[in-house]
């Protein structure tokens, strides 16, 4: 399946990383990406407040959104770090049954690599924008892997 864009947000809703992996992913300005990310963060907070579970933190927030042209998968870590990824809903490349789990796995793998490549860099300051070439390279490998699995 075609992974399009990947976003990482800090716990205050600020965009700290965004990459596009597909030609079909819309090209926006950096400011637009930041707006998108913080709007999505607000929606996550809203969803958690609306959740019937009394403790807002028990609700994982939005896990998946389906639109006619793309799908979005999201996760929030217990520490507040948030990640979401968009991918194709095009029938030719669309995820088949079981793909939901696969994209959840993608996010899990991305999260693990975030802890290894980003947080273990002593010069990275937490919650600041991420500029890490090794992580970029590793993410491309993960994206390739999931693109292959889907096709």
């Amino acid at each position, binding site marked *: 399946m075609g992974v399009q864009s990947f976003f990482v947000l800090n716990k*205050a809703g600020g965009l700290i990383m965004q990459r596009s992996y597909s030609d079909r992913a819309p090209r926006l300005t950096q400011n637009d990406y930041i707006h998108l990310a913080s709007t999505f963060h607000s929606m996550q907070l809203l969803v958690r407040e609306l959740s019937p579970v009394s403790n807002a933190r028990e609700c994982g927030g939005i896990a998946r959104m389906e639109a006619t042209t793309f799908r979005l998968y999201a996760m929030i870590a217990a*520490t507040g770090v948030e990640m979401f990824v968009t991918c194709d809903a095009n029938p030719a490349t669309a995820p088949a049954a079981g793909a939901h789990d696969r994209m959840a796995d993608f996010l899990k793998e991305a999260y693990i690599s*975030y802890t290894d490549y980003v947080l273990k860099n002593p010069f990275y300051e937490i919650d600041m924008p991420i500029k890490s070439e090794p992580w970029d390279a590793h993410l491309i490998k993960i994206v390739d892997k999931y693109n292959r699995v889907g096709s």
Partner: protein
Amino acid sequence: MAVAGLKGKRQRVKEAAGALSMSKGGNMQKLGELALQKGERVPVELLALTYGSLVRQVIADYESIEEVNKQLDLMGYNIGVRLADDFFAKSGVSDCRSFQDSAEIVAKVGFKMYLNVQASVDLWNADNTAYSILFDENPLAEFTELPEEYAQLSFSNLVCGVIRGALEMLLLVVKCEFVRSTLQGNEMNEIRISLVEMLRESAPEDDED
């Protein structure tokens, strides 16, 4: 990084503790065991010697032992705030919502996963705002004997800092200190953790950073 285990005594302690633990604790133990197996390992000697030279350097750099304890705690804190994510990414624990939950998770999963230490939770106070983590073997101090002039040194204080930092990422502000240590001639190591406050989710404290 976890520490490759020493067999023998530790194994027996583990079995005894395993048999005693209740079902929830048992689950946690399994998670810790799994995470330990999945993670990369370093030899316990390397860890003990590296940590020892770190402490030695801090002692050389600071005048008073009190200050050394504080610096070790601070280093641990900076590790802890980063390690919290590493923990959730790799341990299989998905959330840690309350201070009460955190006790089992830190002792059963965290200590096992990162230090290969069998630790237990005990000595809760009456209103459930403080507990102790007990363990008898400490890989950081494997070869250490405290000279008399450093009797006040809390040798493994870094661990306290790690716990403090990691729990703060979960909005739990705690006070954390060694109250007993085998280095100081006690039978067990005891880390006392007491809750100072719970931060509110909706107001991120570090907005200004």
